[in-house]
């Protein structure tokens, strides 16, 4: 009641102020839509110029108590009349502070570019959107209570001009109406309250009305929404939206019973936010919905070629005053949002949130342009605060320029496209792949260099020299072993030739083979000499040398015996001795050969282990 009384005083104060202009509003029709949490007032004003001067601006007045909720204001006019309505022309609107006006009023001026001549008239459509103008009353409710809100308005159109005829209709949601102010000419049709018509009211007429009604629609308010739009010229626009959501309706008090909520969801917890619908552009992909502790599994997605709808459900139903925070992200095809004009590229993308039920206290839109973008400018359909940042991401060297746009009190009407113009050379796209390629290239080159380089710190240190010598010794020993192995192989071949001999009796062939092998063996023993000499000189070989020498000795012994056996056998064949006789003659030699062979093999193993 106190508030109403204040308003009354205020009205009286207003009425004492003189009229300032010659304009007359011949007809005002206002429709107030209270079915959602934002209040949309559509006014049709028929403006007449009753004076003699050309008038180029029309003033719209709002009491400060309303003006602080004002989020969006647009004035337009449709040319032509009746069925031949042309396209709407919207006029620029700005806030003004005219002199001599009563206090506690905020004025917006609609500039008419053509002006309004004497006697001319103009029909002006004014759309005003208020955010947070519905106040919950009572302010705290329990889970079982319904949510009631009050709405304050004036029954008479508040204007600095005289109004001839006016009417007002208030559209309410289909629910209970607790109370509303009844003055003359008040009618109610279902969920619509009608005030008026009222005629010939002087400027600044004011008659406060209050509507108190049930509103169970969710009061989802994003206290802060940060939208990050990252442009990648590889064909992707990545949008990430961080919501900080609160239920702005009547505060919940007392218990929250899940049981009641599940059993009678529309009675117990009627005003809770269960889900929100995000209307995403078509061809959206890679959508996610999460918060800082992980994915939120309660979401649903469907779509066709025109749009994609995502139903997102917060982790818990949100009652009045409850908060939550989450992030949604999605990718869009670049060609739908990036265009080119006059050598410049521009991004054309929507400003507001894709969730239409949400109003936003502070909206920050960040457009991250590719690294190397220059000459950046922004064109937005309404005033926004602009800034610039740099963001480092994915192997950036100088960082990506970020255009930061900030706007408070954002309502779905702000969901319009804005443009960011910039210059970008396609060659810059190749920087990062080239960096990666060269990075890996150098990595491998370093590896190769490392494998081939000798990284010993001191080339003259004893341990290093010893290591070198040891390597040499090992190499020499290896060669010795190879030679011995080849000798042994030749022995095997000699044996084989003897076997051939016993089979075929071809003595000549056997002899020639013997000659060839003799030559080979001689070569090998020649090869062996320098190796042994080098081993003898090397101090590192002291440990291994005796074994090697023993090996060489044994092998030579073996070789001699082998030759002796071979000669004996060949001789016997030449003498045409019998097989048994040969065997007897060779038997002793054969035994020794086998024993020696065994020793040589053992020595080889031994050296191998050392």
């Amino acid at each position, binding site marked *: 009641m106190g508030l109403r009384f204040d308003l009354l005083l205020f009205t009286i104060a207003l009425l004492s102020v003189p009229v300032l202009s010659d304009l007359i509003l011949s007809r005002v029709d206002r429709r107030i839509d209270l079915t959602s949490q934002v209040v949309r007032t559509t006014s049709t004003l028929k403006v007449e110029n009753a004076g003699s001067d050309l008038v180029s601006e029309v003033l719209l007045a709002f009491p400060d108590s309303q003006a602080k909720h004002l989020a969006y204001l647009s004035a337009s006019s449709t040319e032509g009349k009746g069925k031949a309505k042309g396209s709407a022309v919207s006029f620029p609107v700005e806030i003004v502070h005219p002199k001599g006006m009563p206090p506690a009023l905020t004025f917006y001026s609609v500039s008419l570019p053509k002006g309004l001549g004497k006697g001319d008239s103009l029909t002006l459509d004014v759309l005003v959107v208020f955010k947070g103008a519905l106040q919950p009353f009572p302010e705290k409710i329990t889970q079982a209570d319904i949510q009631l809100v009050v709405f304050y308005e004036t029954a008479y159109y508040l204007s600095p001009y005289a109004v001839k005829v006016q009417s007002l209709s208030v559209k309410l949601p289909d629910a209970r109406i607790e109370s509303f102010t009844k003055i003359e000419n008040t009618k109610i049709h279902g969920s619509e309250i009608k005030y008026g018509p009222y005629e010939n009211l002087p400027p600044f007429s004011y008659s406060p009305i209050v509507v108190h009604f049930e509103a169970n629609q969710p009061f989802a308010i994003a206290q802060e929404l940060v939208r990050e739009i990252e442009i990648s010229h590889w064909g992707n626009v990545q949008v990430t939206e961080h919501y900080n959501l609160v239920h702005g309706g009547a505060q919940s008090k007392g218990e929250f019973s899940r049981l009641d909520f599940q059993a009678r969801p529309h009675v117990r917890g009627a005003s809770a936010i269960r889900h929100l619908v995000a209307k995403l552009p078509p061809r959206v992909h890679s959508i996610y919905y999460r*918060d800082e502790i992980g994915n939120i599994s309660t979401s649903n997605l469907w779509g066709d070629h025109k749009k994609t709808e995502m139903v997102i459900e917060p982790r818990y139903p949100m009652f009045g005053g409850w908060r939550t925070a989450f992030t949604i992200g999605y990718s869009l095809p670049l060609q739908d949002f990036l265009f080119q004009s006059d050598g410049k590229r521009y991004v054309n993308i929507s400003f507001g949130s894709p969730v239409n039920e949400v109003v936003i206290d502070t909206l920050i839109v960040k457009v991250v342009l590719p690294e190397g973008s220059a000459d950046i400018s922004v064109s937005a359909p309404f005033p926004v605060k602009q800034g610039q940042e740099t963001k480092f991401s994915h192997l950036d060297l100088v960082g990506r320029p970020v255009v930061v746009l900030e706007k408070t009190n954002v309502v779905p009407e702000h969901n319009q496209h804005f443009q960011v113009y910039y210059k970008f050379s396609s060659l810059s796209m190749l920087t990062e792949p080239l960096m990666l390629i060269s990075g890996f290239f150098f990595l491998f080159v370093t590896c190769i260099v490392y494998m081939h380089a000798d990284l010993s710190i001191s080339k003259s240190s004893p341990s290093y020299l010893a290591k070198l010598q040891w390597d040499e010794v090992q190499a020499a020993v290896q060669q010795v072993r190879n030679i011995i192995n080849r000798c042994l192989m030749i022995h095997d071949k000699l044996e084989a030739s003897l076997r051939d001999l016993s089979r075929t009796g071809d003595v000549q062939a056997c002899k020639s083979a013997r000659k060839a092998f003799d030559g080979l063996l001689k070569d090998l023993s020649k090869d062996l000499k320098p190796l042994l000499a080098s081993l003898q000189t090397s101090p590192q070989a002291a440990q291994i040398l005796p074994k090697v020498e023993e090996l060489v000795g044994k092998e030579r012994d073996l070789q001699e015996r082998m030759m002796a056996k071979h000669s004996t056998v060949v001789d016997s064949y030449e003498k045409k001795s019998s097989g048994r006789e040969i065997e007897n003659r060779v038997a002793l030699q054969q035994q020794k050969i086998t024993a020696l062979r065994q020793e040589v093999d053992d020595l080889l193993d031994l050296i191998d282990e050392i």
Partner: protein
Amino acid sequence: MAASETSKETILRYAFGNVLSFFILVLIGVLAFSIRLFSVIKYESVIHEFDPYFNYRVTQYLTKNGIYDFWNWFDDRTWYPLGRVIGGTVYPGLTLTAGTIWWLLSSLNIPLSVETVCVFTAPIFSAFASWATYLLTKEVKGAGAGLMAAALLAMVPSYISRSVAGSYDNEAVAIFALIFTFYLYIKTLNTGSLFYATLNAIAYFYMVCSWGGYTFIINLIPMHVLLCIVTVMTSEHFASFLVFIIIHVVALVYYIKGILSPKMFKVAVTFVVSIGVVVCGAVLAVLIALVASSPTKGWSGRSLSLLDPTYASKYIPIIASVSEHQPPTWPSYFMDINVLAFLVPAGIIACFSPLSDASSFVILYIVTSVYFSGVMVRLMLVLAPAACIMSGIALSAAFDVFTRSIKFQLPGATENSERDAGETSSNSVVAQNDVAKTEKNEDAVKERPSKKNRKKEKEKENVEKPSVKSQIKKKLLILPLEASIIAIFLLVLLGAFYVVHCVWAAAEAYSAPSIVLTSHSQDGLHVFDDFREAYAWLSHNTEVDDKVASWWDYGYQTTAMANRTVIVDNNTWNNTHIATVGTAMSSPEKAAWEIFNSLDVKYVLVVFGGLVGYPSDDINKFLWMVRIGGGVFPHIKEPDYLRDGQYRIDSQATPTMLNCLMYKLSYYRFVETDGKAFDRVRRTEIGKKYFKLTHFEEVFTTHHWMVRIYKLKPPKNRIRGRAKKSKSKASSTTGTKRIGTKKKNPWH
């Protein structure tokens, strides 16, 4: 000419072998990494379970505030009102590792969140661990066994259970550190290189930083050293050291003898000996006194339960209450190491022929870890690498024998063919056979030549030697061709079974993050995300400084996800504090309210599975609360909560049980869901169905009722009640009132 060709061929073959084993190792790494991603694919990239949330929170703090702040971090959001010195009580290895990785990535401007880094730390380190296993086994038994062991370790279920993506726990990096330390130890032993010894010390330091299991290394390595000394296998090293010490002692004695007169020397000797005996005796006495004076005889509870498996269940309920501290059952061996359990004995036998320092070490490792795993199911993790190494050695040896048997009996590669003139061709056949077989049979040949290759030595006709030699030497080991083929087939089958089991275990058994549960029903997958629902609610809808009381299991998660101060958490360092919470949960409502109020608690969180059948809820853990509470506060007696020794919550339950806070908070208004109050976990109707809460109010219950949060009602109401009472009864005191409530308390 022929000779040079063969030598080229062999060099190529060894190079090919090296490249092949390199690629196999890379693939093993990829396998180890990717088999652990089931949790990310089936669920999401999220931190799992309880302890990882603490580590995650610490890592976040580290990346945000830097290492010095981390070092000096006093955490006042846990163990309220005591707090916890985090910097001084954590193993910082894991945190610093992940922090370094994150720092490295972000300094390269790769925008990965700390969470992502934490989630993938474990899989990355399992790849490292399998490479370390390769190195270790290679030192013991050659490259073939190494590859086999690495492949086995990459997918051993026991290790997977602790290192799936998201399981961001100390074990994730510690197992790598453990194996790598062992590898460096053996490498040092084999080479005697100071370089490896230094690396070994550093790796050991890292291990100590990472996990309490370092005590295993600190005991195992000295044990092995002792074993080496006893068996004098490394005689040239240890004997020389011993002699070195003895010579010095003798020299000292002679020196003293020289400067003193014989008489004085005798006196000095008796003096030194008697002083020594006295000092030793004193030290011994002090030690005994110290040990005897402490109740646990100088051992921590966990170590004692290692020596005596029944210790914890007898004396320390808080250790026994953790399921991973229980002894494992036989099926869990089969589940966790599968066929390896059967291969280990064969591996041990293979290690004995011949017994070297390295192989004696792994034998010691497997023997001790088998014992420890038998005591605590958690230590199965230490057994797993040992089992993998042993099985790798066993499989590799088996493949070696069988493939060699086949090779020598294949037509074209027999001795007869070698007598023919075309030797090179027969050799190449052998070579091709060698390569064509699985990578495992290349081991014996590959390792030795690989060294030579690196030195770029010209070797000629080296192939001749092994073939000639092996003919003579290894003929004894040749088995019948058919038997070998069948045996190889069976081994491959065994391996396949192992792989199938591991993949199943990774996909089904060990990938659940435990904070998100899923169930399959007729209408598809159902997700239970109640824990995060509750934590998110707490984090957004309570005051920043509110204290939340819950059983300690949920402490880490509450601090990490809800960012609220908790009374107790999974660190369980203060038994009394936990007992206080346990007492409150097992007390009647009013007493509980008083305890909680004295702790500044504003919200009480309970986990309740009765509606959806989630078995590990607080009612099932409740007896531990009673036991732990009763251990400190004797007025809580376990028998009061049991009916004839049975724990029940149905109509047969004791009045104490039906009136305790936990029962009330869990079942508050539960009866209204189905009218009968049927608990799906306990499979019974609850005992007391209709009751009201006087000191608590329900503020939040999650979608499936799995988490219920209650708020302590402000004391205002109570005072008004008291005022009314004092009006009616002017002389009534609080003392009489308490008696009055106590009389009221017992049910009926």
